[in-house]
């Protein structure tokens, strides 16, 4: 990876929590906004309940930043609400999410070294 694209990726860090969650969810496949909202709620155990406005505000910014893009493909119309828009993660988005994960990992290691983290039950 060139230095420039490295810089470009690190400019996004640290990622806001909802953005990181959305990128993680999208790395598993194309999703629509409502799914993302539900998924984040599930993954955080109900702690991160994004409002619709906040959700689409983040989506809008991620689209502008090129972290995600709108997907033209639609699943079977019978299963789908026409109003829904589907998004997929871009290569940049994937790299940014990875970089964030590495950053968090380093942070966790640092914490382990100095505090010692109790085993999760």
């Amino acid at each position: 990876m060139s230095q420039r694209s490295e810089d470009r990726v690190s400019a996004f860090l640290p990622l806001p929590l909802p953005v990181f969650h959305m990128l993680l969810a999208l790395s598993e496949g194309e999703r629509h906004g409502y799914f993302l909202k539900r998924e984040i709620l599930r993954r955080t155990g109900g702690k991160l309940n994004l409002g619709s406005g906040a959700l689409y505000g983040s989506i809008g910014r991620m689209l502008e930043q090129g972290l995600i893009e709108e997907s033209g493909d639609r699943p079977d119309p019978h299963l789908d609400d026409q109003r829904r828009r589907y998004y997929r993660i871009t290569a940049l988005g994937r790299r940014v999410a990875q970089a964030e994960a590495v950053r968090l990992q380093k942070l966790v290691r640092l914490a382990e070294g100095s505090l010692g983290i109790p085993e999760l039950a």
Partner: protein
Amino acid sequence: MPDPRRFYRLLLRLYPARFREEFESPLEGQFADDYRDTAGRAARAAFWLHALRDLAVSIPRELLHELVQDLRYAARTYRRRALAAALALASLSLAIGATTGVFSVVNALLLRALPFREPDRLVQLANFDRFAIEVSQRSKFYGWRGQARYWQDAAAYHSSQMNLMRGGQAVRVNVTQTSASFFTALGTEMQTGRGFAADEDVPGADVVAVIGYGAWQQLFGGDPRILGATIRVSGSPLTVVGVAPPGFDYPGKTAIWAPTYFDRDRLRTSNAHQSVGAFGRLAPGTNLPRAAAMYQAELQRQDPRAFRKDPAYRPRLISLQEQLAGSARQASLVLLAMGAFVLLIACAGVAQLLLSRITERAPELAIRAALGASRARLVQQLITESVALTLAAAAAGMVVAHWACRLAATVQPSSLLSTQRYTVLDWRVLVFAGALAVLSGLVFGVLPAVLIGRTLRTHAGASSGAVRMRGALLALQTALAVVLVAGALSMGGAFLKLAGTDLGLRTRNVATLTVSLDGTREEPDAQARQYYQQALDRLRAVPGVESAGAADYLPLVSTATYGYALVLDSGEKAGGVPMVVSTGYFAATGTSLVAGRDFTEADGAGSPHVAIVNEEYARATRAGGGIVGHKISSPFAPPDDKPFTIVGVVRNTRFSPASEVESQFYFPVAQTVPSFATFVVRVRGNPEGMLPALRDALRQVDTQVPVYEVMTLDGRLRERLARPRFYTTAILFFSGFATLLAITGAYGAASYSIARRTHELGVRLAVGATAQGLRGMLLRQCTLPVAAGMLAGVAAAGALGRFLQHLVSSVQATNLAICAAAALALAIAVAAAVWNATGRILRMDPATVLRAE
């Protein structure tokens, strides 16, 4: 309960356009799904709470986000068209600045509250001097105040300059003699001490006085022992009982108030600067129109003749604020209108700029529309662009406004200096500038935005609509420019005429100095006669002095305020203005003697009474050149009064450039001794440098006599012309600016039209049209809206011309010839601009043009 989804959809409208376009339907969908899944009253309430909190956070964030994006985009587009944008910005800042500057003056004069208690209940009796005679006695005045039900209180005053003695030296101060009700009617509390008691204006009572805060500080060093102290004004002792609050100097920079309005002979006032007035405080439950009607009815009963007079001199009630604003009020309002005109022209220019952006981007817009870009989004972008431009212009315009305020303060000072200061730092002014900017940004951003709808509907580009709108904007610019240019031509003409008026005096190399003997040891006739003689001798002895004289009412110093008729021994009589002058006066002012002789030292107290008249009196009495040797007398003179023998005739002089030539009679100082005079000293070289020496020479005669208003006659003339010059410069500036904008507008329209029709022009050239022919065609097409605008402009200029008389009174209502001249001048300029812009056609090669397509 209304459909919750409908309510939510309404809330979504608060989002900015781009966000809504992208996410409105998924947001609606999600809301509908979540709402369906939420059951129970408490859960629904929590759901709403969550949704509303989300909107409250996210809407402002998205608005800000899109605003920043739109602004960045606007900055980029403006940078691409830097010259056009700079012109638009400059024209808008000047226009908004000038308009805001004038508004600051209007604000200070008409909107800001006067420094009195409940100032909107204070009413001035305009043209009071006529009615003043009716109520000149104390009992009559208070009788009238008590019986007129519309008054809660009323006061009368009489202002003039007087000598205040300070340690052997006299200073000139403004003294207002009032009725005792003055301060109570205004509702003014003293800084220290008290105002006047109700019976302190009874003639013959011991005279008390209130001193102004500024005078107390400057003349008495703020000494608290001033209360109870005795000061001498015009030779009379006054006991100071109070000090007025800081900044209070009503009326007209008064330094001392004394309750001697009904005791006129108590304080000697003999100079030219006098004004008499009255005001009242409206009774609770009445208003100005009702009070005015009652006052009129009352006057009608008392003196029906008063109403047959010129309405301008009719006694009537006006608000005190209006009276204090005086002539500056009308002038400022006219200038405000002019500023608004220029602003409109500048805004039309900005609209042109935005329009050409739309046309340039028509293909792109059509594609985006086909791809589903909403109109709202494009409109939002355009309006952001224009409002950003106008707001930036308003910010820059505040500098212009500040400068305009300072200029206005020097030529058109307000009557209450301390509280009516012209400033842009006032919330009303700032709101005005902001509103002006936003409004013009909105109006002229929306206009081109309207076209977008058509562009998107027809997918064919905004061409025809844009052409029509450009034509309309150009016509508007032209019409307003014609009005302003026609106004400038009339004003310029009137001003030049005014400045070139023959005053009958040679004002160059003349110094003037005024003295007043009131209350000094020189006041008695014998002493005064001697004083003037010594003063003249001293002045003439100053090196560099050619001649010196003195007069009581010197032209350019005072205005001819009174006059009377004198009867010639032939029986003819003519009204005129009397003046008392010394020997050497005519030589010093450069007024030439037409017949007979000047006054000499021999025309003393005991010698036969003599007079000099001017040519106008000789003409009016049909005596002509043979008038010398005839006798004149006053029709009211007692029979044993000896008539005056006319010994000479001098040229006509005017009291000011704007005044008419009037009959004048001159009497020698030694025979009619005035208690004040202005010395006129003609010197070799620049009189400015000699003023201190001349002042010292006069002071040496008697240090008790104050010497004031020491300035050159040229300086006085400049002062007289300052206001008309300012107004003329202002409108010349406005009109020149408007012309420039109209010309650039026409140039822009022409080059735009060529750019748009390059292909068509290429085809025409290819099939044999000549370049000159095409230029002619374009010229005709571009000048059509200009011509339409001119017609409208000429009509408007004719209708608006009479308002200019509020600026320079000698202005003639704009006539058709002037309007036509303005229109013609503008037409030539516009045609030249268009012709210049179409020069590109000459270099057009049809082959290249068509190949490019």
